């Protein structure tokens, strides 16, 4: 049996899992099974995923502290468990994905073409801007810039943001002209294999995600 979850099936499971769990008023131990299943599949990157999860807990921690001080311990722990289970699920599934893969996935899932096209364009621009940020950071390092709380530092960053906005205007004009000259008809084509298949591990996973909400086991809160 090939242990693999395709992004499109994983996304559908994540969509269902996050809404279903968000609506739950109790937390059962069985809700942890799908994220654990994904963690086993991605065991090599587990520390990267857990580090990101820790960073994402800042907001949840503020809510948790607020609720503990308001003497609502049950709700505090319920939110802590629910949030972490959903975030861990999402991180395990998408930690190595990029915006292009997300756009391709939504195209495969037959999302509205305008939304998919938008995602393809956003993915393209993100790649460009990421390179600009790398270049900017290198330039700052080369010029001996000291990154500290000062008016000068803020002005430097603001000028860079201004530069990114100007790049954005120019790039959008270039893309608009390219779309017109190539007779863009609202569709973006790709060379990806159109054959649709589902692995046995995916069937087990999707069934598990459904089952834990039909018959939850081991109530914690």
């Amino acid at each position, binding site marked *: 049996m090939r242990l693999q979850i395709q992004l499109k099936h994983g*996304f559908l499971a994540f969509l269902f899992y996050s809404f279903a769990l968000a609506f739950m008023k109790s937390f059962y131990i069985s809700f942890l099974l799908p994220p654990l299943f994904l963690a086993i599949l991605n065991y090599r990157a587990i520390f990267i995923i857990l580090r990101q999860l820790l960073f994402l807990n800042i907001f949840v921690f503020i809510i948790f502290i607020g609720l503990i001080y308001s003497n609502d311990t049950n709700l505090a722990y319920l939110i802590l468990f*629910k*949030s972490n289970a959903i975030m861990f699920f999402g991180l395990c599934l998408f930690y190595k994905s990029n915006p292009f893969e997300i756009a391709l996935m939504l195209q495969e899932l037959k999302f509205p073409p305008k939304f998919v096209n938008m995602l393809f364009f956003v993915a393209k621009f993100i790649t460009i801007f990421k390179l600009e940020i790398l270049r900017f950071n290198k330039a700052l390092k080369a010029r001996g810039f000291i990154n500290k709380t000062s008016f000068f530092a803020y002005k430097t960053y603001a000028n860079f*943001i201004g530069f990114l906005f100007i790049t954005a205007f120019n790039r959008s004009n270039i*893309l608009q002209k390219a779309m017109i000259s190539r007779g863009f008809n609202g569709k973006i084509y790709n060379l990806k294999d159109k054959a649709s298949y589902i692995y046995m591990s995916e069937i087990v996973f999707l069934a598990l995600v459904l089952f834990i909400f039909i018959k939850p086991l081991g109530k914690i809160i």
Partner: protein
Amino acid sequence: MHISEGVLNNEIVAISSISCAFALYFSFKGLKDEDLPKTAVFSALFFIASFVHIPLGPTSIHLVLNGLIGAFLGTRAFVAVFVALFLQALLFGYGGLSTLGANTLIISIPSIFMSFIFRMKFNNILLRASQWFLIGFLSILLSSLLLSGVIWINGENFILASKMILLANIPLMFIEGIISLFAFSFIKKVLPKVFV
């Protein structure tokens, strides 16, 4: 600025998701093919803002830039913010799918309002500088108020948390205001035609 998964109660998740879906349907319907590149490029800029870390004392914070984006995009900022938040939710876990509706409304509504402030014309340098500062400052202030408001109505035990969240966002308001002021003055010098 992002509400995490599992924090909001069922009513808020349902109402915000449905309102966002309706607004999104009409926004995409009204979005012409020729508007796609400009909306996409600003959406990418909003997405990338989370990579720019501004120093603040011993720590650093990342920018939101919803004011600047709203100033240039107007109502199209709604689509731009939604797409960027959708990608952030999947790729980094910021916010989430069940809170995507609430997060989109919280960030995009003040963003759209900033386009009205941006359209005001001032000849006085001081007034213009205040306008540019306010675009950054007010967008975060309004988003923070909306964010705290949503947390507040989530339940009476959330009142303390909502106050803490509002307080935590105060430094960001001023930093975004300063960044917005200098960024606008840079754009005005290099590409003045966008101000016409």
